[in-house]
């Protein structure tokens, strides 16, 4: 009982989450964050950053899905409110931009070809973010902090 109550406090700070194709509420599933996070990896998420509004560009966050509040999405923050986001293809000739509205963030998966993210459903309200993923604990050969985005070009304000 005491361990349970002690963990209630910890749950406000840490959540153990992972990518796994079952319906549990703390799991995200899918290939959208490969190669940074694969399916059946286990990662540690912390909830303090979102309470203190310390989420930054390049962070990987767990958020409630905008179209289904019971499932989670696991994406990288590409832009914060006020940032200019390139919405057309980077290789295209005519580039179109838009600005992330106030109170929202722009999320994209690392696996751009296979990711349903803000490019599909638009900017996501900050209030849907549940936590920031900061440590991978399984598999052991990939233990440690998470790599930077393989899509560095998405962060340019250009």
């Amino acid at each position, binding site marked *: 009982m005491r361990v349970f109550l002690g963990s209630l406090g910890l749950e406000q700070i840490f959540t153990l989450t992972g990518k796994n194709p079952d319906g549990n509420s703390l799991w995200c599933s899918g290939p959208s964050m490969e190669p940074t996070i694969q399916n059946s990896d286990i990662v540690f998420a912390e909830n303090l950053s979102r309470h203190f*509004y310390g989420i930054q560009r390049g962070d990987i966050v767990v958020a409630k899905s905008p179209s*289904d509040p019971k499932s989670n999405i696991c994406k990288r923050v590409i832009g914060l409110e006020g940032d200019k986001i390139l919405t057309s293809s980077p290789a295209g000739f005519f580039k179109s931009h838009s600005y992330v509205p106030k109170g929202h963030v722009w999320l994209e998966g690392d696996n751009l070809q296979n990711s349903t993210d803000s490019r599909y459903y638009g900017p996501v309200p900050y*209030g849907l973010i549940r936590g920031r993923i900061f440590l991978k604990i399984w598999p052991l050969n990939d233990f440690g902090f998470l790599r930077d985005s393989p899509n560095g070009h998405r962060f340019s304000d250009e």
Partner: protein
Amino acid sequence: MVQSQGWVRRYFKAFCKGFFVAVPVAVTFLDRVACVARVEGASMQPSLNPGGSQSSDVVLLNHWKVRNFEVQRGDIVSLVSPKNPEQKIIKRVIALEGDIVKTMGHKNRYVKVPRGHIWVEGDHHGHSFDSNSFGPVSLGLLHAHATHILWPPKRWQKLESVLPPERLLVQSEEDCLVERLTEEVAPKWKMRQSGGKVRTDGYREGR
């Protein structure tokens, strides 16, 4: 000497044990079951705060009822503001996913509420920052269901889930001319998915 020190230590130990049990229990209760909050502003007049700034209502917020994101049309709910995540706003649910809303002051005249979203409005139209300004809100932003007014005592009452009569919903797509129906997701984001091009005024080409 030993005895007087003994009771201090025992008292201290009992206090710590109680404290580290009571605080997580209380925090979890207030976070997950119910809490109270003072309502500010005039956006829900006359249901809430009819006296304006002179007397703010205090309402009971029930988190437990919305733990599965189940709300009914007409419920008064509190949610995280989509424009400012540090703020909670309290509004009435007008429409659920799939409903078609005739908006008041929104850029599109009719809006179909997308999956996983709701349309909220304050009862005091024109003085309310609600879905008519920021569009449908995701259910994930739902915070609690306001069930009762607790203070001041003469306003003690249960809040009813009724839709204001002038906000009855459009029943079918034929009621609003079909070609003026726009889906409330910024059309640009849908471009790749729909295949056809969607103009920025919301009409879809090549249908």
